[in-house]
């Protein structure tokens, strides 16, 4: 009883103990804030990665590809007949699958003209099925046209592309150039350029361009039948401008070179969705500047499927941008319709990977392991989304771990502060300790006073730190804004992080560990002073002045 009473009185009368409470408090608050922000970043990143990648991917090692979903598989498991790929997957893990789609992925070069110069980028071209791609990943959500987000279509829209980042909301800076994106941009651009033909213009459909006969026919029909039939043609030909108002006697149109292709009224037979960072850059103020817009034509150079692969080039019209906010993807992915890519590469019916979306709550690693039994590892790589981004996620985890170690060292420093302050208090209280011993208090009892003291300091310090930390995390964006306003320097630069807000996730388990660790350190730091107090000789303590 006297332990608690004295401990309480010491807490209330020794203001120097406030210093140790403060140090514990600050340590705990900092750890909670840093962990929450790190967890927020990790969570955001995982979310995005998971959104971009499907849960499980079956990849073919060869550039030649593997059979499409509805074709017979090449390598049936031993003792089984050949089935279609879809059947094989469904027989293995069908009950856990929500959707499947096939993709073709090839490395490629992207080139487009900006200000009279060619811009060339190294990219991954992904041939996707516009109908099923959004079933296996969040692909659709990252597009810039609202209708494309509803149902993806590889078609240039008249206009209506987002002028602000729809994922961030109305606070995002305006992307002024996107106002014109779509047909308006394309008409304006090519109307002017036809007077001064440029490389891009003259390149037209490339040498290797083997147009789809059907589409070719549509184009010719549209041109021959004139504007009166244009709307009807637009309904059947997906690449026609539905709102084509140019009269047939348009002087610019008449000057179109020998090619019958009219870029002001038609898009290229191939259309593409570019990763947004391929066509834009971000200024330090966080504004987006575009080098190309939906409506522009770009060239893709891709390897053919044969041996040895030969490069072929084709012109594609940009119909939308893809913005996942993972710069790795936004700056390297180009999506085109899968059939177009298959035709260009000469790999009809072959795909390079199959993406599988699992039902909620299904363990992806388990599905992966079961599929691995049926699809021989010599030909297929089967990976979960985590496997594919393993190094990145591991790096983030490592960073968090190291930060935690460093921050815990800070709390340990606070622990040494407690130790010093406690030793001081023990010296100051030497006579009181002697008195207690003369009254019959045992060494353990005296020790208990100081251990309880340390425990209460730890409890109070980490309790206040917990509240402070959680409050800070809860209002971190307002605090960052405020600090930014005061110092005139942006604390959180969106152009660096691709988030407009600081993401935070509070993990209760982590918080419990932090608080528990801080309390433990406070108690450990009070052991030495408490021992010293316990071992004081009562007579010497009583004599102490």
């Amino acid at each position: 009883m006297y332990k608690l009473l004295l401990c309480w009185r010491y807490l209330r009368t020794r203001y120097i103990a406030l210093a140790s409470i403060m140090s514990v408090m600050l340590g705990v608050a900092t750890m909670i804030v840093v962990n929450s922000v790190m967890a927020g970043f990790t969570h955001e990143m995982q979310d995005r990665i998971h959104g971009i990648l499907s849960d499980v991917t079956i990849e073919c090692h060869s550039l030649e590809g593997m059979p499409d979903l509805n074709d017979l598989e090449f390598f049936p498991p031993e003792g089984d007949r050949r089935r279609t790929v879809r059947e094989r997957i469904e027989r293995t893990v069908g009950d856990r699958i929500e959707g499947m789609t096939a993709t073709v992925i090839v490395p490629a070069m992207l080139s487009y003209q900006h200000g009279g110069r060619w811009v060339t980028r190294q990219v991954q071209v992904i041939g996707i099925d516009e109908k099923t791609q959004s079933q296996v990943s969040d692909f659709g959500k990252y597009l810039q046209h609202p209708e494309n987000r509803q149902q993806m279509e590889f078609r240039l829209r008249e206009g209506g592309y987002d002028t602000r980042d729809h994922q961030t909301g109305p606070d995002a800076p305006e992307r002024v150039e996107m106002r014109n994106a779509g047909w308006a941009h394309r008409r304006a651009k090519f109307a002017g350029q036809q007077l001064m033909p440029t490389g891009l213009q003259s390149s037209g459909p490339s040498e290797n361009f083997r147009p789809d006969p059907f589409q070719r026919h549509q184009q010719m029909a549209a041109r021959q039948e004139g504007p009166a039939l244009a709307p009807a043609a637009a309904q059947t030909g997906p690449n026609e401008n539905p709102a084509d108002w140019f009269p047939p006697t348009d002087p610019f149109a008449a000057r179109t070179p020998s090619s019958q292709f009219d870029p002001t009224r038609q898009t290229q037979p191939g259309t593409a969705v570019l990763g947004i960072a391929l066509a834009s850059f971000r200024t330090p103020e966080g504004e987006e500047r575009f080098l190309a817009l939906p409506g522009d034509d770009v060239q893709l150079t891709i390897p053919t499927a044969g041996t040895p692969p030969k490069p072929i080039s084709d012109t594609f019209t940009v119909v939308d941008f893809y913005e996942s906010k993972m710069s790795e993807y936004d700056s390297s992915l180009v999506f085109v319709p899968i059939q177009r890519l298959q035709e260009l590469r000469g790999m009809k019916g072959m795909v390079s990977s199959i993406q599988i979306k699992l039902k909620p709550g299904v363990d992806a690693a388990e599905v992966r392991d079961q599929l691995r039994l049926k699809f021989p590892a010599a030909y297929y790589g089967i990976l979960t989304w985590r496997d594919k981004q393993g190094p990145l996620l591991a790096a983030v985890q490592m960073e968090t771990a190291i930060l935690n170690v460093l921050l815990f060292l800070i709390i340990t420093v606070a622990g040494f502060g407690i130790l010093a302050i406690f030793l001081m208090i023990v010296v100051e209280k030497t006579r009181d300790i002697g008195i207690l011993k003369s009254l019959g208090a045992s060494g353990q009892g005296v020790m208990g006073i100081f251990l309880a003291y340390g425990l209460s300091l730890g409890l109070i310090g980490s309790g206040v730190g917990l509240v402070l930390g959680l409050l800070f995390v809860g209002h971190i964006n307002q605090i960052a804004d405020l600090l930014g306003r005061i110092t005139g320097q942006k604390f959180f630069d969106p152009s660096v992080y691709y988030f407009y807000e600081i993401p935070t996730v509070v993990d209760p388990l982590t918080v419990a560990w932090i608080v528990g660790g801080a309390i433990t350190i406070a108690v450990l730091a009070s052991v030495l002073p408490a021992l010293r107090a316990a071992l004081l000789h009562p007579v010497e303590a009583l004599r102490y002045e």
Partner: protein
Amino acid sequence: MNDDRELWASQPTEERTSTADRLLTGSSPGGPHMTMRPRELATTDDLVGQTPGIVPARKPRQVMTSSQLEAVNLTKSYQKGKINIPVLTGVSLSVREGEFLAIVGQSGSGKSTLLHLLGTLDAPDDGEIYFDGRRIDNLPSAQRDTLRNRQIGMVFQFYHLLPELTTLENVLAPLMIAHSTLSYLRQRRRHRRVAAELLETVGLGHRLKHKPRELSGGEMQRAAIARALVARPDLLLADEPTGNLDRATGRDIMQILGTLNRQENLTIVMVTHDQALADQADRVVHLADGRIGG
């Protein structure tokens, strides 16, 4: 002994007079503690006419029942650097139950050390101490703690109250130490009543909630006496209890001790350098050169 009353009569009239008076005359309600412990009353023969406690150097373990505290040939020396300073060089002492013994010595004569040894706060280099026939100087520390807590009360020259606690809490401290938190809380009211009554008896009934620094020296010493008595000890050890007080207040304290000795039959061992104070005790021994002299 008889000039107690005389001393008292010369006391200036104060509010505490009434309390002390009650103590003296025994007219006070006194509280249960005053009468609860049945004590074997010492006969006049025992109190008077006993030669000072010089006892044979080698004494059989079985000590007389009338001797409550017995020290046999105690030696104690302190190490200061390389020099060994002998403080006690063979002190033997016997205190009867209900006796008021004064040990007189110059400062530095080792009287405080002797008191610490008797109170088991320190251990002698050599020699033995018996309390109620039981050897206590070599007890394990836990048992010594219990002994100090329950059977020996101590009063010091500098009062030694805990500055963080109120007067009442200071008096309660030995009870808090004696009981676990739960059992203390269960009997809290009873403990508080006992302590409050005891403080009332020493004239501090109006000072229960005051911190020691708000009390005068005499009040602090009376609080210290109340604290020493709250666990109802058999033996009170007083180390210069009036050393820091003015004459009048010192007399006051001595009154209280004398009354306790007579009415409660409490054994008191007091050390002092003041012969006049010592004369108020039943028996006086002198400590010089580390030995008890006549």
